[in-house]
């Protein structure tokens, strides 16, 4: 795929990709933007190549997921961030509170009660409107496993949001 075409595809999926990056970074806006920029640069520089085995969107989401995991694993980055030495942007209010109406807050609170896999599959299917098969590709798990997480997560969400739904 040519760079111009890659750029065009990335731009087209940018809003959804930002939502996914935000989810992968625990709703930390600064980390989400860093992860997204790193993922885009990986793709544009050819370090991550689209092979065409899946849709561009699921592949892009997979790259973002791995990039976020890499960033979490960088112990020195965590150390510097926690010490507040390197990143002066901490004071800017990193956590996304954009959609902070009652129901949205309840939804976010309920999501934090779920396991990581359940959160991922529910975000991908409900927020990103992917199929379970696509979600499984992004999460790098089998479809059966994704379906199990989906059903359990959904049941738990219903229980937690009993009054809100």
């Amino acid at each position: 795929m040519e760079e111009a075409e890659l750029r065009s595809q990335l731009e087209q999926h940018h809003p959804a990709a930002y939502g996914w990056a935000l989810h992968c970074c625990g709703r930390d806006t600064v980390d989400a933007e860093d992860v997204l920029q790193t993922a885009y640069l990986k793709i544009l520089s050819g370090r991550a190549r689209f092979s065409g085995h899946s849709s561009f969107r699921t592949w892009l989401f997979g790259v973002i997921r791995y990039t976020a995991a890499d960033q979490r694993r960088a112990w020195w980055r965590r150390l510097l961030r926690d010490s507040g030495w390197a990143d002066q942007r901490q004071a800017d209010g990193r956590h996304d509170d954009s959609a902070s109406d009652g129901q949205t807050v309840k939804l976010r609170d309920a999501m934090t009660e779920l396991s990581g896999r359940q959160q991922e599959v529910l975000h991908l299917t409900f927020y990103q409107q992917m199929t379970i098969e696509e979600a499984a590709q992004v999460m790098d798990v089998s479809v059966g496993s994704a379906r199990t997480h989906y059903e359990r997560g959904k049941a738990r969400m219903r229980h937690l949001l009993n009054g809100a739904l």
Partner: protein
Amino acid sequence: MNDAPLHALFSRTRGREAADVPDFHMLLARRRAVNVAGPFMALLLLALAAFTTFSVPEPPPPAVSLTEWRSPTAFLLRTTDESLWRDLPSLGPSMHFSPPDKEIP
């Protein structure tokens, strides 16, 4: 089961968050945060490697020949009987310790 309420809730959240998505071109063009820690750690490791490789080892103390070697406790062997006697505390006049003049029948 009816998933419509969940879909509606997520959809509303997505709609609200869409306004806060950073501009694609701005995000790509943004100057990346300078990675301070990476080069710092690399320099530190390099300095450590250079130090261990090129540091001159401290010369060992000169060897002492066997004939000149003295035990650290050799002074104990040099203590004579006389000096031991001198060091004994006095217990009183010596007459008290002398043998009696007359032998007891």
